Each structure stands twice: as structure tokens, then as C-alpha cells.
């Protein structure tokens, strides 16, 4: 009975979220990053299946949310869980995974809105040149045209610190989000199959899941550390080249 009830409790917010996203009527073009990165995440998850919980899916969801907005992260999380389970085996865990990964993507989108990628990386790229120029016209309009050297040096200093902070915060967020995802899935195990064991059962479920969650967090950390900066530059260029809006 708890399996049914918990599925309903988790399923209703998912349906509401999906229909709300539907009503915003995103352009097909803005959806494409979500489609491509979700497909990559699904392939990565299926390929890495033999190694338990070591998979790049969470990192890719974080990247989607971080660069293409909260709704993109949300959608990506839902799609990755739903479609990768079509290949790996659908089950009562699917709605929980959908919700957990959506939250991870949404959080990453929230983070992406707080930390401005454009300013940090492009200013970082120009830190060795004398004049900081706005690339692609728009991104660093506030710093372009400044000829005061002292001011300029300050900008450069701030920029290179900015990218370090951005990198650290995002990678740490990815690891923590993976852990939270794991905790949600362990709770699902407890609620669905072993709720009669009481609190000791929940603690045991979390303890048993810990090594797997650590592996998950490590994989996310490694994948994000490898891809965040180079892919971020590509995403940024793609956004300006094709006029993709954050969702």
C-alpha cells in the first residue's frame, strides 16, 4: 500500500510540474540543449551500468541546469530518469528518480542564475590583454571601454577569482546534489519496501546506500571538473550563435 501511496504522492507534483512547463510553450530551439544533453546523459548512464552508481548523468543534468536555466534542468532531470529507465528497466523508483533529478537540475539552474558565467569566463580569457573587450557584444558591457589601468587591473583580478569560485561552487554543488539524490533514493527504498522496520531500518538503508552515494558523488565531481570549463565555453558560444534563451 505504501508503494502505491508514495507513487501517488510523488507522481502528482511531477504531473503538475510537467503541465506547468507545457503551458510556458518553450520554442523547439530552446528545448534542443535539453534534448541533446539528456540523450548524452542517458547513453552515459546505460554505458556505465556495469559500475554501480558511477555515471555521468547527474553531472550532465547539473550542466544543463547551470547553463540553460532552471526549467531546462528540471526537464532534463525528468527526461533522463524516464527514458533511461525505459532502457534499463522501469519500476516504482522511476517517479522518485524523476523528482530527485529534477530537483538537482532546478538547483543547478538556480545556481547558474546567481553566478554569472559570461562575465567570469570571458573576462578571464582577456585577463592578459590590456583592454577588456566585450565578446559577442553584450556580455561584459559594464566593463568594456574602461581605460583606467587601476580599475582594469581590479576587474582582471576579480574575474580570475570569479572563475575559481564558479568552478569550485559548481563542482561542490554537483557532489552534494548527488549525495542528496542518493539519500532520496534510499528513502524511496525504505518507504516502498521496508517501512515496517521503523527508524532503524531507515538508518540502515541510508548506511547501506552510503558507499554507492559516495561513488555517485565522486563520478559527478570528476565529470564536472573535466567538462565544466571547456563545455561551458562551448555552451556559451552556442547560446550567442543560435540565440538560445535560458528556460
Amino acid at each position, binding site marked *: *500500500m505504501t*508503494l*502505491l501511496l508514495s*507513487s501517488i504522492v510523488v507522481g502528482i507534483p511531477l504531473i503538475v510540474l*510537467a*503541465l506547468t*512547463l*507545457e503551458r510556458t*510553450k*518553450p*520554442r*523547439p*530551439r530552446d*528545448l*534542443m*540543449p*535539453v*534534448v*541533446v*544533453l*539528456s*540523450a*548524452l546523459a*542517458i*547513453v552515459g548512464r546505460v554505458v556505465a551500468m556495469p559500475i554501480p552508481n558511477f555515471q555521468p548523468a547527474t553531472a550532465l543534468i547539473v550542466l544543463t541546469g547551470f547553463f540553460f536555466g532552471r526549467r531546462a534542468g528540471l*526537464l532534463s532531470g525528468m*527526461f533522463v530518469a*524516464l*527514458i533511461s529507465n*525505459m*532502457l534499463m*528497466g*522501469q*519500476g*516504482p523508483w522511476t517517479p522518485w528518480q524523476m523528482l530527485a533529478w529534477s530537483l538537482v537540475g532546478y538547483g543547478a539552474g538556480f545556481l547558474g542564475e546567481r553566478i554569472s558565467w559570461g562575465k567570469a569566463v570571458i573576462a578571464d580569457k582577456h585577463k592578459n590583454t590590456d583592454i577588456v573587450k566585450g565578446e559577442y557584444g553584450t556580455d561584459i558591457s559594464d566593463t568594456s571601454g574602461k581605460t583606467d589601468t587601476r580599475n582594469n587591473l581590479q576587474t582582471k583580478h576579480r574575474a580570475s577569482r570569479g572563475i575559481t569560485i564558479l568552478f569550485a561552487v559548481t563542482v561542490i554543488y554537483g557532489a552534494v546534489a548527488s549525495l542528496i539524490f542518493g539519500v532520496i533514493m534510499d528513502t524511496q527504498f525504505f518507504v*516502498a*519496501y*521496508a517501512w*515496517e*522496520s*521503523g527508524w*532503524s*531500518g531507515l538508518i*540502515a*538503508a541510508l548506511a*547501506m546506500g552510503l558507499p554507492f552515494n559516495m561513488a555517485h558523488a565522486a563520478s559527478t565531481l570528476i565529470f564536472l571538473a*573535466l*567538462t565544466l570549463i*571547456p*563545455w561551458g565555453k*562551448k555552451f556559451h558560444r*552556442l547560446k550567442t550563435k*543560435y540565440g*538560445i534563451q535560458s528556460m
Partner: protein
Amino acid sequence: MQVGRSYRGYSLERRFALLHPVAMMLFFAGTIVISLISYHPVILGLSFALAAISVAYYAGIKALIQSLSWLGPMLIIVILFNTVFNRRGATELFTIERFQMTFTQESLLFGISVALMMAAIILWFRLYQEFMTSDRFLYLFAPIAPTLALSITMIQRWIPLTKYRWQQIRNADKMLSDCSSSYPASAQSDTVHDAATQKSKGRHNRVTRFAPYKSLTHSLSALMSWSMEDAIQAADSMQARGYQANTGNRDSVRALNSDSDGEQRAGTVHKSPSKKAFRRTSFRYFRFISHDAVALALIATLALLAGLAIFFSTRGLAFFPIYRGAEDLSITAALAASLLMSFPLLLEGKEQLRWRLSAQTK
């Protein structure tokens, strides 16, 4: 009569594959929900057995074995977890004195019930996967959530495409590293150059050691850009052909307006956005015929009946402290549930019978 293997629910010999998607969806929803309602051993056994038989019949014995092979360890974990961590229950199985752990019969029974339910659900989902192909999925959900349904179908298309592109990129990468020593990702350099050249380039040893990983990230990056640019072109192409033209997306209407062929049509869209004239069509069209209506009514009645009967007759079932209430299951519940769960198989049986009879009379 030779019965061919069904491929993803497309086999014409399977009557269930010809059912309208709405009836099919209702069957799966009803079956899965009914399997989730109760831990009654009869219902669980019925559900598991019929799911296994259906999967074996429609998807092949191999598919069933494959599903069970990854299911097995999970079921064992669920059973063990419940037995070890659940101390409730009155009947003692055995006790480990050293850790002061008591294992009870009730918790073992509970674990087995939960595991059986889980196995049944997963097998029903396996059957669902066999029949709910993406065209049926789109037919059902595109009117409700067009964007989401489209994204899901596109992702499903992009998965094999991504794999194919990855292979292409890796091949190119391998070829380049084999043929040119100056290629940065020269992973196979030691197979091409002899030991002497390796030694003379000792300074670069560190570079070559990390080269395979570097080339891997390089390839991944290429894969991402390639897929992304292609997807965006696909989106543009869709918009240029009037995708979402009737859903109030301004860009699409503009794209239609600028299209010289579609001038006439676009004009009418602007003036009177009548939904009938420009309704989204589905890739595959499913006709709802009288057979589907009968099937739909049958499935709905059986599901409702089984659901209510199971819910009300197995309320007395309890595991702790003593397993009890397993005997009062109403016959209606068992009958309705077994009829509902064997619906596809009964449908096939009916068709076979009809075929045999018609062959006899001739």
C-alpha cells in the same frame, strides 16, 4: 499455424497489438495499480505469474530470463533487508546470541511479499515497454503535452544517433593518432614508433601517458557540439515548416507567413485561428473501432471491480505481530483480477480459437 515472433508489438499476428492505445494504456494502468493495492499472497502470485507468462509470450523467453537475472539480486536484497532489520513479529525463526539478533517468520514473509510485488510490477512494466512504442506514446500524449511528448521522442531518436556519432568520432580519432605522431591525442604511439624513438622523446612520456584520457575528453566535447548543432538545425527546420503554428507560438506563425507556398494557409491562420483547420496530426493514426470500445469497457469494469473487491476484502491482512487475514479474499476479487491480468492472453486465445474453428468448417 506458425506464430511469428513479435517485434516491439508490431506483429500482426498478435491481437493485443491491434488494440487502440487508449484501451492498452488503461489495461496497463489498471493492472499495475491492482498489483500495488494488496499484499495478499493469491493476488501477488497471480500478478507475478501472469506477468511472467505474458512477457515470455510476447517478448520471448530470453527477455523474461534477462529481466529476472537483474531482478534476482534486488529481490534478495529486499528480502534480506526486511528479515535482518525488522524485529517485529511473534514467531521466532532463529536467534544469533552473539549480536542479540532475532529473526522472525513474519518479517521474512513480509520481505517475500514485498519482493514478489516488486517483481510483478517490473515485469508488467517490461510488457508495457513491449507495446507502448513511441508512436503510440505520441498519439496518446501529444494532444495533452505536445512539447514534452516531442522532446521524449526526440531524445529516443538521439540515443542511437549519439552512439553512432561517438563511434564515428572515436574511429576518426584512432585513425589520426595511428597515422600522425604529431596528433595531440596520439594514444597508440608506442605501437607505431619503436622503442628508440620513444626513448629520444623521453620528455614527452608524461604527455603520451595521459594522451588517451585527453583524447577521450576531446572526443566527448566533439560529440556534444556535433549533436547540439544538428539538433538546433532540426529545430529550425521544424519551425520553418510550421511546427506549433496553431499553438500560438508567434515565431512559427511568422515563419509560415514568410513562406511563399504557405501564404494562403498562413493568412487563414492569422484571421481565424480555428483549431479544426490546423489540428496537429499524429505520425500514426489509430482508429477507434467497436472492438476497442468493447475491450475498453471490459477492462474498465474488470479493473474497477477487482480494485474495489481486493481493497475491501483484504483489509484484514496484517503481518505483525502475527501473519493473519490471508484466508478472507473474496472470490470476486480473485476472479476479476485474474481475468483482467490475463486479458491480452485471453484475447490471443480467442483469436486462435476462431482461426481453428474457421479452418475446420471449410
